[in-house]
């Protein structure tokens, strides 16, 4: 309707008349350069202040609602069953259930720490291209071999909580290579880089092991259902 818009003001020197022609099929847009900088004070500092306030308020509310646990005085002669480490170590304690202590307590944590430290120095992590956005056949074959090896190891030690997420993620990785994969899914999954797949696998395994350790383990480290037997 109003293809032509006229802006007017009383003071012609202050607000000169501008004429803008806007085509109906192409709405007006302003190109915004987000590389532009802003002064840290106040733009970043104000936002940080808001973050600080939100954190303190949130923590205070949680502290008013929930009390920190306190059990009876430490008694070396009375071992609780199960004796659990703090939640962030329960993934490791869950592994201790499957592997000998030197593997679960020393070898695997050391491998995790070393693996995380070297991330920026390993080339696959510097490559942002998706797994299927470049020649992928050899990568997928190599990946299949590695998964088969790890899978065999996990089966021999009966580590089902690691085997299941490993196989699920492996299925997602090779899905775009299969002929029946829908094109939209193929495009979406194909964009994910190999390094992201590996990290996602690690996070999934760590989260599942920790959740099992926190919720699903009872006396003698047996499997329990938290809604039936409660949380130990």
């Amino acid at each position, binding site marked *: 309707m109003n293809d032509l818009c006229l802006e007017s003001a009383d003071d012609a020197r202050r607000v000169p008349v501008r004429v803008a022609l806007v085509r109906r099929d192409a*709405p007006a*847009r302003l*190109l*915004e*350069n*987000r*590389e532009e*900088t*802003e*002064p*840290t*004070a*106040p*733009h*970043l*500092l104000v*936002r940080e202040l808001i973050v*600080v306030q939100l*954190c*303190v308020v949130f*923590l*205070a509310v*949680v*502290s*008013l609602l*929930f*009390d*920190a646990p*306190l*059990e009876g*005085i*430490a*008694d*070396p002669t009375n*071992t*609780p069953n199960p*004796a*659990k*480490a*703090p*939640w*962030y*170590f329960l993934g490791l*304690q869950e592994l201790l259930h499957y592997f*000998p*202590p*030197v593997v*679960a*307590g*020393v070898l695997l944590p050391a491998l995790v*720490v070393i693996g*995380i*430290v070297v*991330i*920026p*120095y390993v080339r696959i*992590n*510097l490559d*942002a291209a998706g797994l299927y956005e470049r020649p992928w056949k050899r990568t997928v074959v190599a990946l299949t071999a590695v998964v088969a090896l790890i899978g065999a190891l996990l089966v021999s030690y009966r580590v089902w909580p690691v085997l299941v997420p490993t196989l699920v993620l492996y299925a997602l990785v090779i899905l775009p290579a299969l002929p029946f994969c829908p094109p939209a899914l193929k495009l979406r999954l194909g964009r994910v880089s190999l390094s992201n797949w590996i*990290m996602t696998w690690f996070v999934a395994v760590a989260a599942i092991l920790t959740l099992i350790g926190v919720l699903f383990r009872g006396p003698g480290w047996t499997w329990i259902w938290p809604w039936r037997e409660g949380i130990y």
Partner: protein
Amino acid sequence: MDPVKTLTDNRVWRSIVRHGIRGTNRNRVMLVMENLFLHLHPAKVRRRNLEVSSTYYLGAVGVTLFVVLTVTGVLLMLYYHPSVPQAYDDMKELQFVVGNGVFLRNMHRWGAHAMVLVVFLHMLRVFYHKAYRPPREFNWVVGVVLLLVTLLLSYTGYLLPWDQLAFWGVSVGTNMVKAMPGLGPTLRFYLLGGHIVGENALLRFYVLHCVVLPGALLLGVAVHLWRVRKDGGVAGSSGLRRTSRRTKP
């Protein structure tokens, strides 16, 4: 009379803050550059890095939690003796005698759990945004060390209430250290000051928790933030795709 002008327009104020308070761009930059605490920030930041989805402010949340934990931790130290069985009695004092003692302990406990989680999420954010790429490789390594120090801080603090939860949680963990071939038993002996989790272990964990590890974390965070500035500010989601320009409707 303008109270702001009265406060700032004199020699005493100018001896503390050298630049004026007028909202010019020069003063805004000076405010950051001339301040010991603020100068860990760059004087200017990219507009896109101010967006929440760029960093989720997880680093800022982590630092905030560290400050909250330091303040509540120092207050808790006023009521705490690292000895057996006084340590546990002090927990009961906090519960029944000290005003707001329970609230203080809750803040410290939940804050510590939150910090472990937030520091881990911060690491994931940096990974998925590929913000560890050159020249930021070494700052990633510093970050991993900070994550480990955070875990150790939380773990050493776990023993201090000296209740069953603390004692057996730490017993399970330190038994894992023993499994390390060769060095393990010796390391565990030095960590506990003996062969069992006892009075010496409590004192050692206390010193680690209140002096050594917070000092290490403070130093590490200073290096971490300083390197962020030297490497050209935070790498938000920019590492992912080249979306530096977008249109606004």
